[in-house]
């Protein structure tokens, strides 16, 4: 198979400009930023994988999912962990099926070899069947191979690459630079339409330079208040404007504190849902104290902020007031 330029262009045509990327992602509920859209745009047009780093819960994995939803192509997801190897990521032979077929064929073996005179003759005849067992029919494709075999493009998400071993990282290089994989018994399989490859990392360990060099690099950090409001609005549409402003400004304030784990977007969204369930229409100290464990995941963090909660809640509560003054509150929808 050769790379078909027209087909590639057609598959990824919705991503023809940075603005188109942003709009497309927005249409499936992902609020992008200039930086994210530019990286996606470049990845498609330079045909390079993207390595996304950033704290947990800022939407790294979600980006890949949204992209596949928007392009309407399959998402192949490979979750990395210590000890992940080729048989889990690339392909595996269907041993059971092979065994079963051998059992069935056993009865018919006489028909095949019945009149073979010499050993050489016998091996010659058997050799013609050898390829049968190591053919595509007996191959169990795993995410990497599946992504290469998609005829109409796909999004390949290699999640938390930093959790895998260094050997696996080296193994990925062939996939990432040439969009092809090699199965020794069959040969090299090259992607017809290269997938959009997205790797994510939480920085558990430093990745190798060879891998970094092959990828575009994107850092997704915590969003600013405006983007965070949009994100929460998209995920929790029922939340009122004033509460939204208050809770986002509270979380933004909280992130500036000295914490062991700072709350992410996913925590903000969870908190918005929690507040909604509790029928809160504005922030007050008691409410924040009751629900703080949604935002902060360490007891020491909750204790450390305990003294400041009151003033932070008041600040956040007043933030929506000041924003609703004369000029009019900007519509978020």
């Amino acid at each position, binding site marked *: 198979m050769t790379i078909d330029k027209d087909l590639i262009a057609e598959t990824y045509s919705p991503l023809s400009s940075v603005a188109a990327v942003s709009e497309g992602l927005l249409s499936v509920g992902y609020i992008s930023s200039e*930086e994210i859209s*530019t990286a996606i745009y*470049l990845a498609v047009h330079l045909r390079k994988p993207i390595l996304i780093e950033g704290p947990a819960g800022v939407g790294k994995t979600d980006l890949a999912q949204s992209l596949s939803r928007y392009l309407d192509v399959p998402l192949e997801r490979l979750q990395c962990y210590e000890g992940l190897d080729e048989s889990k990521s690339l392909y595996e032979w269907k041993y059971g099926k092979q065994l079963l077929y051998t059992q069935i064929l056993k009865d018919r073996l006489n028909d095949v070899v019945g009149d073979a005179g010499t050993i050489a003759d016998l091996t010659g005849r058997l050799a013609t069947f050898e390829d049968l067992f190591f053919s595509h029919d007996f191959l169990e494709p795993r995410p990497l191979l599946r992504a290469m075999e998609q005829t109409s493009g796909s999004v390949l998400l290699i999640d938390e690459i930093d959790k895998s071993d260094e050997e696996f990282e080296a193994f990925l290089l062939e996939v990432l630079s040439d969009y092809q994989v090699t199965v020794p018994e069959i040969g090299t399989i090259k992607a017809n339409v290269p997938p959009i490859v997205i790797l994510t990392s939480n920085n*558990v360990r*430093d990745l190798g330079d060879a891998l*970094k060099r092959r*990828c575009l690099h994107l*850092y997704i950090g915590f969003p600013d208040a405006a983007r965070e409001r949009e994100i929460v609005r998209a995920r929790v549409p029922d939340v009122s404007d004033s509460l939204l402003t208050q809770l986002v400004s509270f979380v933004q304030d909280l992130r500036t504190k000295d914490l062991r784990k700072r709350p992410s977007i996913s925590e903000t969204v969870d908190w918005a849902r929690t507040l909604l369930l509790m029928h809160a229409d504005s922030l007050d100290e008691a409410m924040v104290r009751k629900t703080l464990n949604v935002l902060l995941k360490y007891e020491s963090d909750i204790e450390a902020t305990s003294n400041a909660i009151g003033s932070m809640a008041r600040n956040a509560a007043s933030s929506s007031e000041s924003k609703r003054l004369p000029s009019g509150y900007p519509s978020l929808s």
Partner: protein
Amino acid sequence: MSAERTITDFVRALRSADVKVSTAETLDAVKAVDLVGYEDREFLKTALRSVLAKSEAEKDTYDRLFELFFQRKQKEQSEKTESSEQDAGEDSGEPQNFMDIAESSDEAVIEMALERAGQASGLQDIRFSTQTSYYAQQMLKEMGVREMEAELLEQLQAHTPEGDAEAERMMDARKKMTARAIEFAKQQFEVFGAGATQQFRDDFLADKRINEMDRSDMERMKPLIQKLAKRLVSKHSRRKRQKNRGQLDIRKTLRANAGRDGVPFDVHWRQTKKDRPKLVLICDVSGSVARFVRFLLLFLYCVRDVVPDLHTYAFSARLKDVGPYLDTSLDGFESAMERILAEIGWGSTDYGQALSDLQVDHWSKIDRRTTVIVLGDARSNHGDPRIDIFEDLAAKTKRIVWLNPEARPLWGTGDSEMLRYFPHCSTVTMLSNLKQLERAIDDVLMHYS
């Protein structure tokens, strides 16, 4: 200047600032520029950032250099178009004479001459800020200052009022151009040399003796320690597994092949996991050693990702567990250190008492997988050094590493008990600078992999 040239120059600037950019990435950058064009600066900046800068630290450097570099380029470009419009009517020849350049009313002419002279004298290789005046001189030479000076001498020797006035004019011009050249060289240093200087300074600092450091050195040490520690973390973060081939892991093999009727297609071997580092740190925080303790603690604090099991004790007279003090973020480290020194760092040092405190209160935290690191000068004010406890400790642990800030010839002199502790330690190292500290910690961690 062509797009390729601009990008390669920029890449050069990045490399000198310790951003590692490969040739392949440079090619990608050129392709990216083809794709996005130069029109939208922010777009270009974002696009190139994702191609060239591959970590958070690199992104910061990138942002700074991008502004510096392309500001200049843009100025250059706009001036070029401007001056070419102006020149269209006049003669298109460039002014070559020094005085023509210096007295040109057109700022663009001066800028361009500086740029050209800078390139001719290899200004891009500038590495140290002290080189600016040297390069400025070279640039003036390129612009023909020698010829001008010859003429200047002639005029002075003529001893005529017109000659003096002419000489005055020339000297003014030279002064003005010297200032401009130095300013230009400084700018270029910011782009091409500042990063390299930082690298040089770091290397120098890592070699400098810790007790000779002044306050400004100490402040610069913090990021440097973080950098060195990070290097160690990535080196040791991989938990090594040893395959012990030859011993079949029957349980795992059966489990893996259950679907195939127990026919062992997929064979698993026993694996032994290496121990995670387990460190117990005993620090003498009396006056003479306190400074070293700060660095050792900061260093270990930065590598705690690979050393989850770390107990820290400090003593001068009595031993105290200072682990809880250090359970803060990096910003809180300094104040934690102050507290430790204020609470424990007084009284006369007594190694014997510290060892017996360790035996009484914390003996259970030490086992055969523990490495004990002792930091101190072993000056125990002639008290009983309690060698017996130390001997027990040595038998109980994996290794004892002693870091002594004093030079070897001083060991055992006066009230130093170093030579009596010596036989029971696995290694005793002199600790005088950061490099030795890094090597010592590396060595400790190495024994766990």
